[in-house]
Structure formats: structure tokens, C-alpha cells
């Protein structure tokens, strides 16, 4: 508190100095905010996509077993398949899945059926479909004018419910139907399933268990893991991060302009600095004044840039637009970000934007003030 009380006059005067050059400082604020916005949007989006993906993928099966025959994929006998999977140590809760991809009203849709009993609380108001009914995702309903859904050109279903938009990251193209309808639509005989979903006790054992699983079945099977798709996603995220870095090049150039502009601006103030030194201001006092002045401009600029980037990445409909722009067409809803991710992003912004700006102000002032006061007072900014 004593420190604040002692620094209060200097802080007030720094604000006064900001107001003495309103045009320049407003421009500086706009540039810093824009720069922060550009960099933060790219960083936040990449990180949010990665985090959202990770959290969703944590819920996906660790391994999926599909049967192969000479013609390609084949339905897997449920009983025999579950029995074989159960013999592998570390493989938990093998589950037969009934699902596939069929042509919908406006493109392919993912069709799935669930035989397990779902707790009412988890249903969130939806009713599990019976024969002839379907619960559809938002991407499917967009193409419909009434409550009828025709799949594969021949199977007509009545829509009894819609997945809420906040689940669209998982259910966007989903059609949830009764198992009988799924078998008929996908051509999967009774007693068989599309594949088996397997959860692991230790995910680190995935590679070892994969080999055991392949050997456990009496038919050729293909085992795909979550890590494969996760790796694929991370490759994509890294690529997007690379794009973000490339997008940062104009941002970095803008930063260089701001920094050199800040440095150049100090030369016109040298005569005033000489006067201040003549009145007893030390170099440290003048540097502190400049830094506080820069902070008064930088903090609201960076905060506004960060908040705008956050709004663009997370707040619909701006988030949807930003997602389509950055990913090139995929619609993304309701991304998530952990506070730790946000903190890391803020640190990156501090390093990329705030520190170079403050360093420019600090170094330019230190260099500019390091002369005798009288020589500074005689400095002609037009020389």
C-alpha cells in the first residue's frame, strides 16, 4: 500500500502523458489490440480444438475390432466375438456396436443403434427410438422440412427427437435408430454386429493388447486404436498451429513496426527528458514513467484483444464463423478450454506482444536519456 501511495503521483502523471498524445496512443492501442486479437485467436482456437478433441476422445472406445474377409469388412458374430475379447487381459467391457454410414437426405449420415439400457438422466428428455423411429442430430434435421427421414432412398423413419445443439460435436450427423431398423438398413444379420468396442484398463498397454486381441479371434480382424486417430488429430492440430504461425508473420511485422515506432517516438521527447533531469528526475524515474505510460496503453489493448479473441473462438455465432474460416468449412460448436490452457495462451501473448513492446519502450528510453541533461534539452527532434 505504501508503495502504491508513493507511486501514485508518478502513475497519475504517466496517464497525463498518455493524454498529451491522444492520437498516437490511440493508434498504438488499436495496433496492439489487433495484433493480440490475431495471435490469440489462432492460439486459442488451436488449443481449444485440441482440448475439446481430447476430452471427447477420452470417452471413445480405446480399441475397435472389425472382422475382415476376402470381400473387405464383414459383420462380426457377437457372442463369439465378445467371448474372444473377454479372454484378453486388460481389455474391459467389450461391447458390440451396430452402426454404419448410409446416404441421407443431403449426404451421408452415421446410423447407430444401442441395445444397452440408458439411464433416464443421461437421456436428457429424449426417448430411445423403437422400430420406425429416429432421433437425429442437428446436421440431419437442417435438411428436413417435416418429421420424416428417408435413409438410403428406401427406409422411411419418423423423427421423435433431436439431439440438442450443444451435443453437436458428437451428434451432428448422427441418426439413432432401433436395432432392427439398423440391421435392415446396414444389411447386418441377427447375431452379428458392425464391430466390437473395447475399453482398456491401462491405455499405455494399447499396443501390447492390440497384438493379443488380433491373436484371440478365430478370424482375421483389424484392430484400430484411439491413439491412431488421436495422433492424426494432433498432426492436424500441429498443422493448424503451423498455419497460425504463418498467419503470425504479418502480425510479427506489425509488431516490428510498433516497436520501431515506439523507439522513434522517444527521440522527439529527449528535450523534455533533459528538462526533467534538470529538475532532479533520475534516469530510473524517467524510465519508470515511460514504462508505466506504456503499460497504461498495453494492458487495456491486450485485454481487449484477448477478450475479443475469446469471444470469437467460443461465443456463437462468432465462434461458428471463426471455425469455418480457420478450418475451411467444418462447423464447430461449443469448444472448451481449460484454465491452464488459457493461462498458457496468456503467457504466450505476453511473450509475443507485451514483452517486446515494453522492452522497446524501456530500451529506447534508457538509450535516449543516457546523456547530459543540457545536451538533451538542446536536442532538436528535427535533426
Amino acid at each position, binding site marked *: 500500500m505504501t508503495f502504491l501511495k508513493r507511486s*501514485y*503521483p508518478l502513475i*497519475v*502523471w504517466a496517464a497525463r502523458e498518455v493524454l*498529451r498524445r491522444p492520437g498516437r496512443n490511440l493508434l498504438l492501442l488499436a495496433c496492439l489490440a489487433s495484433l493480440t486479437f490475431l495471435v490469440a485467436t489462432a492460439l486459442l482456437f488451436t488449443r481449444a480444438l485440441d482440448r475439446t478433441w481430447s476430452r471427447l476422445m477420452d470417452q471413445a472406445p480405446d480399441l475397435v475390432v472389425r472382422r475382415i474377409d476376402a470381400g473387405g469388412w464383414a459383420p462380426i458374430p457377437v457372442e463369439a466375438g465378445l467371448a474372444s475379447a473377454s479372454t484378453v487381459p486388460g481389455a474391459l467391457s467389450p461391447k458390440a456396436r451396430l452402426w454404419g454410414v448410409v446416404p441421407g437426405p443431403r449426404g451421408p449420415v452415421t446410423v447407430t443403434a444401442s441395445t444397452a439400457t440408458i439411464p433416464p438422466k443421461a437421456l436428457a428428455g429424449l426417448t430411445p427410438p423403437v422400430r420406425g423411429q429416429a432421433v437425429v442430430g442437428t446436421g440431419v434435421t437442417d435438411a428436413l422440412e417435416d418429421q420424416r427421414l428417408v435413409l438410403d432412398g428406401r427406409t422411411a423413419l419418423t423423427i421423435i427427437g433431436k439431439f440438442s445443439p450443444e451435443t453437436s460435436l458428437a451428434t451432428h450427423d448422427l441418426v439413432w435408430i432401433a436395432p432392427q431398423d439398423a440391421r435392415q438398413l446396414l444389411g447386418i444379420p441377427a447375431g452379428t454386429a458392425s464391430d466390437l468396442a473395447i475399453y482398456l484398463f491401462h491405455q499405455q498397454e494399447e499396443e501390447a493388447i492390440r497384438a493379443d486381441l488380433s491373436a484371440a479371434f478365430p478370424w482375421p480382424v483389424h484392430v484400430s486404436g484411439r491413439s491412431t486417430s488421436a495422433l492424426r488429430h494432433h498432426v492436424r492440430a500441429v498443422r493448424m498451429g503451423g498455419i497460425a504461425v504463418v498467419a503470425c508473420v504479418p502480425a510479427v511485422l506489425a509488431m516490428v513496426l510498433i516497436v520501431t515506432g515506439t523507439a522513434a517516438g522517444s527521440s522527439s521527447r529527449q528535450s523534455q527528458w533533459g528538462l526533467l533531469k534538470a*529538475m*532532479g528526475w533520475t534516469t530510473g*524515474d524517467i524510465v519508470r514513467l515511460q514504462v508505466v505510460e506504456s503499460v497504461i496503453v498495453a494492458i487495456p489493448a491486450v485485454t481487449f484483444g484477448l477478450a475479443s479473441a475469446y469471444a470469437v473462438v467460443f461465443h456463437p455465432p462468432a465462434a461458428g464463423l471463426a471455425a469455418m474460416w480457420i478450418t475451411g468449412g467444418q462447423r464447430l460448436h461449443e469448444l472448451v478450454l481449460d484454465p491452464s490452457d488459457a493461462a498458457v495462451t496468456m503467457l504466450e501473448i505476453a511473450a509475443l506482444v507485451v514483452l517486446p513492446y515494453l522492452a522497446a519502450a524501456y530500451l529506447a528510453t534508457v538509450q535516449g536519456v543516457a546523456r547530459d*541533461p543540457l545536451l538533451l*534539452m538542446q536536442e532538436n527532434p528535427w535533426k
Partner: protein
Amino acid sequence: MEMKTGLECRSLDFAWPGKHKAARQVLTDVSTTFSPGTLSLITGETGAGKSTLLHLLAGLLRPTAGEVRADGRAVSRWPAYHRDRWRRRVGIVFQHLALVPDITAAENLLLALLPGSTSWSGMQAAIRRQLVDADLADLAQTPAGEMSGGQRQRLAVARAMVAAPRFILADEPTAFQDDAHAIGVIGQLRTAVEAGAAAVVCSQDPRLKSSPAVHQHYHLISGRLHPGPGHQDPP
């Protein structure tokens, strides 16, 4: 222990560095003491080096030989940081005033108080007092650039005095003043001196030459300081 000996020049030399090694000698072997509680007047022709002497006394320039001592300490030999800090105890009135034109009169005075450790309210009180003494109370909110020459000069004097300095160095402080305001400025200097400050004024103003407030007279000729008419040796 600090000796209150005032401002002292010991064999002070100064030459401006010139091109092609042709340095221009300004001051030669200047030795004197400006004691606390005294007002000293230095006269001399234009270009004699009066302003340069003041700048050396203020530590704004380094002498090429000799030293400047303030209360027994060789301030001219100090590094820049310590000289800058010491200058908080010095009030300077520049010949060209050196005011900041786009801020108000009161804010010009505030600049002289900010590096100190006075509270905000203390600073405001000191500024108010000084503006009243300088007959500028009504112009506190007026930008310095919009004031007349005489008003700006009184403002420069006020800025030099606002921090209650121990040493006052004034270059032509009454040049643009009418008689009444000149008397006012001299009165301010006398008040500061009576409070224990050591004041050194460079001026050609006959009102200062004939003022009884001046204790010591000096004349600067060809870079050398001589006692002027009416000079009394310091106690």
C-alpha cells in the same frame, strides 16, 4: 556529516569541445563560495559565460578542470545518477525558461515535485502556495504556451522555488517583468534566502544590481570571475 558551506567553485575551468580540436575556453580558474542565506548577483557582457557558470553549478555540465562542491561534497565528480538526484535540491530558472507549453501552469510546477517523496496532497498545497506568491493563482489551469512572456517567466521562477530548494540558480529571472513584478520576484528570492537557501542570479537587470536584497556582486570578464562593486566577502 554534511557541512553547510553552500555552493563552492574551486579553480573551475570550462571549454566547449570544438571541431578539429579547436576548443573554446569559456571559464578560467573560477573560485568562489556562494554561502547559504546569501543572494549573489553575477553580471557580465553577453557571451561572457554567465549561463555556462550556472549550468556548471547545477551539475548540468561537467567542468574541464576544477570542481563544484555543494555543502562540502564534490558534486561535479559524482556519476550522473547521483548528480540527477542532487538536483532535487536545486531550483533552476533557465534563460529560455524551458517550460512545457502544452500542459498547464500548475502541471509545470508538478513536474518539479514528482521525483520527490511528497504526497499528492502535499504537492498540490505547495503548488497552490507558489502560484499565489508568483501572482499566477488565476492562471493555474492555463497552458503555459498561452501565457504572456512575463507570466511564463514568473512561472519558471515558481517552478524553481516550488520544491523549497537549498540552492537557487536563476538566469535573468526578471528580464520580462515590470517593476512591480520584478520586485515580487526579488522578494521571492529573498524569502528563500532568508530560509537558508543559497541563491545565485545572473542578470544585467539594473533593478537587481541596485536591490538591497543582493549580498554579493560578481562580474564575469573573459571567463574570469571578479568581485563587483558592492561585493562583500562571505561570512
